[in-house]
């Protein structure tokens, strides 16, 4: 072995490892999600439980809650989105920087829930693209954790997300 090859070999035994760039980037992204808790209603209270001492979302690397969309990459829509709120939600989504993900928590955010009513948007996916839907009214914290883990898997697998790529702002 030449001395150069030997040194690379030694290097690899000490601290280096080989990987694909997209894989290591995805690994970093999935384990450091910074959520923006868009808690509007009951689900927002249950989201507090998810963050709270018993269920502790920090175990999944997502405890740095950021209310500024510029600093967050996971939008958790927790609660009913009304017609009055929809333009605000779109604005917040647009202000988030790439890469960004959306988790719709609960029946109301996913489909309007049991509010088939004159002032309730029938699902936040009518205005923004959603990656993961978590059912429940409100979902148990376990279900939300499962949703986050599903999203982490999507990120690490680099799954294509056509709903996001084809999204157009509904107000333009």
């Amino acid at each position, binding site marked *: 072995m030449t001395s150069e090859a030997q040194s690379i070999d030694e290097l690899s035994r000490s601290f280096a490892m080989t990987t694909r760039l997209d894989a290591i980037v995805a690994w970093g992204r999935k384990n450091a999600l910074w959520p923006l808790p*868009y*808690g*509007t*209603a*009951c689900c*927002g*209270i*249950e989201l*507090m*439980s998810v963050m*709270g*001492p*018993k269920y502790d979302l920090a175990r999944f690397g997502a405890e740095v809650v950021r*209310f500024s969309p510029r600093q967050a990459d996971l939008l958790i829509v927790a*609660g*009913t989105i*009304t*017609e*009055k*709120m*929809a*333009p*605000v*939600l779109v604005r*917040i989504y647009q202000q988030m920087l790439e890469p960004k993900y959306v988790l719709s928590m609960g029946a109301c955010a996913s489909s309007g829930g*049991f*509010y*088939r*009513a*004159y*002032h*309730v*948007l*029938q699902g936040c996916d009518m205005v923004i693209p959603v990656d993961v839907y978590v059912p429940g*009214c*409100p979902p*148990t914290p376990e279900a939300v954790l499962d949703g986050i883990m599903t999203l982490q898997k999507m990120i690490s697998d680099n799954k294509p997300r056509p709903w996001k790529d084809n999204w157009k702002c509904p*107000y333009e």
Partner: protein
Amino acid sequence: MNKIEVLKSELSHNFDLSNFVFSHQFGDDVIQSPKEQIIAILSYFKSSGRFDFLMDVCGVDFPHRPLRFDVVYHLFSSKDGSRLRIKCQVGENESVRSAIHIWRGADWFEREAFDMFGIVFEGHPNLTKILTHHQFVGHPLRKDYEADAQQHASEVLPIHFDSEPGMPGSILNENLVPLNIGPSHPAMHGTLRVMLELDGETIVRSKCDIGFLHRCFEKMAETHPYNQVIPYTDRLNYCSAPMNNVGYCKAVERLLGVEIPPKAQVMRIILCELSRIIDHIIAVGTGGVDLGALTAFFHLFTYREKVYSLFEKLCGARLTVALTRVGGMAQDAPEGWFDEVLSFCKEMREGVDEISKMLLDNKIFIKRTQGVCPVSAQDAIAWGYTGPLLRASGVNLDLRKTSPYYGYESLDFDVPVGTNGDIYDRYLVRIEEMRQSIKIIEQLCKNIPGGDYTIRDKGIVLPEKKDVYGNIEGLMNHFMLIIKGLRPPIGEVYDATEAANGELGFYLVSDGSANPYRLKVRPPCFAIYQSFSHVVKGAMIADAIATVASMNVIAGELDR
């Protein structure tokens, strides 16, 4: 002589009573007045001191009547706990004079009636939409508006202000800094929007924009059978869901004229008091967070989780429990549940002491809250404050004492009262109320009455599942009740309970069908939050944040 006769003879000295109708229905005193007289009669009751609170103003739509709308006022006297309902009829293109000059608290209630029904209140300074968005056309609670006819909004209104005398209205002052907070802002708890004009850090004027969580509860109630409304009530004040269940079922039961068995009463009180504790946990915890004290919140949430576990054992759900049914409870408590509640009380007692030390004895907390934005007792009453905020202002009013229900009168507990109505007093009252709630639960858990957890009226309560699947009578009963529905008699009732935030009232109008004809909720924080702009005027912006937190505005019941 009963109460309504006394009122009648009192009024006869000052009014020509030929156009008035006095009645006593389902335990409520009602006066039907011509709309021209309504302001005179309201100000008479206010100035004579007979009734000091205007609890609620709302509309009811009767599209087939020549004068289409009812405007309904609910008065309350804190002296003897008596109530009075005053109604007047208003046609579609007519107006009624605003009561805002008699009770400031009529402000948002009248705006809501305008938004929902299109009833015009003459003399109201800002009669604009309040719950629906600004592009919404029509009045959704009118009977001819389809429940699911959605109208999309494409934008949010820019910063705007109410027109006040001496103020430039919606034109912004170019020497001041306009600031928009919310609705997506941590201090605004998700759905509140406050617009301010600042001189340095001092608030010159402000306006609240609400309705970002208007989920059409009242319209949904009109389109669902009585028992199916219960899950919707869960989502009014979602921090203490069982209290809403109890309040609603109590109103329906009064209309039906049934009394629930002792065991159901005790279970309801225990659930209410557990809810009061966890509601105050959220109020105190997030109040601390808004002032920068994160520890108390995480610490308190441990206890909230424990109550969730208790609820889960009872019904399977954690937050939105839908535990009651008209006529009693949905099911009996499992074996040993009351003992678990007792051991929770023991833990909670220590928890409250710890929190009290962490927050109320904390130097920073005291400096941020003591003497900040106080509300006097007189103002609090004029705005329609109830619950802990009213008591913090020094008014000793608690419905559990003034008009006790479910046996509160036989329980030993105190009502904490503050002195000057500042933010510190509000937390002081809340924390003491948690202690009192623990005391109530402990008294009850040691002496649980036997017997059934619900009444067994075949026209009201569904039979148990073993009967539905086990015998033909049960099956028939189940079938008939589902098809026909629970049908209370024609009439109306206003019933109030002491919820964690104050008086939670349900005004229920029944036309004898299986759905409520009209269900108006009188949410406690709606009356409280309307005073926000006045309370924070001239204060620092950081104090406004502390004020919002201490008002404990829950968007679910604020916007419904």
